[in-house]
């Protein structure tokens, strides 16, 4: 009965891992068999300014995105965790972006941030500011992508937090109230520490997935028309996964693309190890 998984593991995990490692040390264009080139791909990669730019963009995106989403999701979960009416309706509103594909989200955010006829620019004009080019602006593109990503994903993280909050005993809050603690104090001194194991999981999960972000940037920066134009303008939103996709699937440099994948893998591994080590310092277990 475990056969499906054994096939899965041998072919699509173990076999693929080894193959990908081998490719990363070869020149491989799919059409001809891979040719061993040693560390060539890696030295080329580390000397390539575009790679460093992509790495920086990825880090910049993650550093903005992960804390913002985690913080606002927790605030929403706390607000929602007090038996409000119309809970179902509120949850639907927050889940609507979660269940939408990035293609849908692209048109939804375009309604607001279209540089020619979006509502954001009309608002700016109304208060006397000059219109912006939003996703087509080199400096705005990543912050705006982050904002949209937080907006899309927050409902999902909120639900994870809601489940965590169910485990915080209400007596603790009652005791704090008797001692005269205010809302913000209770949030900082009780909720945040007692829910830190959920926060830890959320942080690890979102960091790993954000480092591999692809779909949003591919769709929203024009990759769907022409894969090589994704990550624009002027490579300002070129993240590692987009770089990998273009090198591997647009230019068929599979060996080089595999090297990007392995560098990404090593970074993720180190990040997880660091987070695991730090975990002992701030995560509260009962």
């Amino acid at each position, binding site marked *: 009965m475990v056969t*499906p998984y054994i096939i899965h593991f041998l072919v699509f995990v173990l076999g*693929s891992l080894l193959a990908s490692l081998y490719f990363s040390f070869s020149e491989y264009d799919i059409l001809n068999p891979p040719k061993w080139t040693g560390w060539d791909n890696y030295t080329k990669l580390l000397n390539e300014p575009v790679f460093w730019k992509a790495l920086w963009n990825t880090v910049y995106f993650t550093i903005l995105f992960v804390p913002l989403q985690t913080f606002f999701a927790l605030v929403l979960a706390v607000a929602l965790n007090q038996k409000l009416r119309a809970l179902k309706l509120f949850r*639907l509103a*927050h889940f609507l972006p979660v269940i939408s594909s990035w293609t849908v989200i692209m048109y939804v955010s375009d309604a607001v941030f279209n540089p020619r*006829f979006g509502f954001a620019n009309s608002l700016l004009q109304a208060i006397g500011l000059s219109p912006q080019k939003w996703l087509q602006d080199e400096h705005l593109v990543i912050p705006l992508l982050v904002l949209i990503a937080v907006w899309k994903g927050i409902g999902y993280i909120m639900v*994870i937090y809601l489940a965590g909050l169910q485990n915080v005993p209400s007596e603790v809050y009652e005791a704090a109230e008797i001692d005269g603690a205010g809302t913000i104090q209770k949030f900082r001194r009780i909720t945040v520490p007692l829910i830190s194991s*959920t926060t830890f999981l959320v942080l690890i999960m979102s960091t790993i997935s954000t480092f591999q972000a692809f779909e949003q940037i*591919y769709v929203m920066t024009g990759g*769907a028309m022409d894969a090589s134009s994704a990550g624009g303008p002027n490579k300002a939103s070129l993240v590692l996964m987009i770089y990998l996709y273009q090198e591997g699937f647009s230019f068929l440099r599979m060996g080089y693309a595999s090297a990007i994948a392995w560098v990404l893998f090593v970074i993720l591994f180190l990040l997880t190890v660091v987070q695991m080590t730090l975990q002992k310092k701030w995560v509260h277990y009962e």
Partner: protein
Amino acid sequence: MKKKKIAGYLVIICSSLIMFLPFLTTVFNSLKSYAQYTKFPPEWLPSPVQWSNYAEVWKLGSFGQYTMNSVIITVLSVIGALISCSMVAFAFARLKFPFKNTLFLVVLGTMMIPPVVLIIPQFVIFKSLHLLDTLTPLWIIEWLAQPFGIFLMRQAFLGIPRDYEESARLDGCNPMQIYWRIFMPMCKPTFATLAVFTFMTKWNEILSPAIFLTSKENFTLPIGILSMAGQWSGNEQYMVAAALMSLIPILLVFLFAEKYFVQGSNSAGIK
């Protein structure tokens, strides 16, 4: 009402509006004429309401084709995930076989491997099987038991008391019958959770179709709609209508199975 509750309502109502208003605006956009859609400063309400945008989307044959492709991939993936994950999970929860614990550790370990290192070899595998530019790679992988599903089902199976199968075994049931007659009916909610999650993932997926598919007639909805930009230039409001229509199936699933979405999100957090 307590002050705290009022504050809670305020936060939630504001954020619900921030979540919902852009969608409403998009629905209005999908009903505008091209002239009104591209007008600056923009008008919120469509006038006149142009319902024909939705009909126009279907007139172009490829939208129906994309819908069909998405349905095929999603349905086959859901069936495959339910069968393969529950079988493997049953084996892990109840059967005895060599290296069982080691293999389960492997399952947990593979959940941690970032998919990015596996994409290129998968592409090569499907190329050598001559399956590139067909729908097969997009669903066949779900028939091979993904670790998240195994983990989810195993947790549910472990919660079933052993007494049930003991008496079934005394009545002469073999493991396959125990799995069919006892475990499957008792874990319906978990099956539903895995089904809605697989549905959502596959319906919305962009990376894999973008890699495995090259001919337009094989595209799924999310990438297919984007590829219609050229044909509909000068009528971009059609694309808004098309995108919104692609949201309807998943929205219906959500409305009918909301609690399974919530359960699934929580187990994703636990993993």
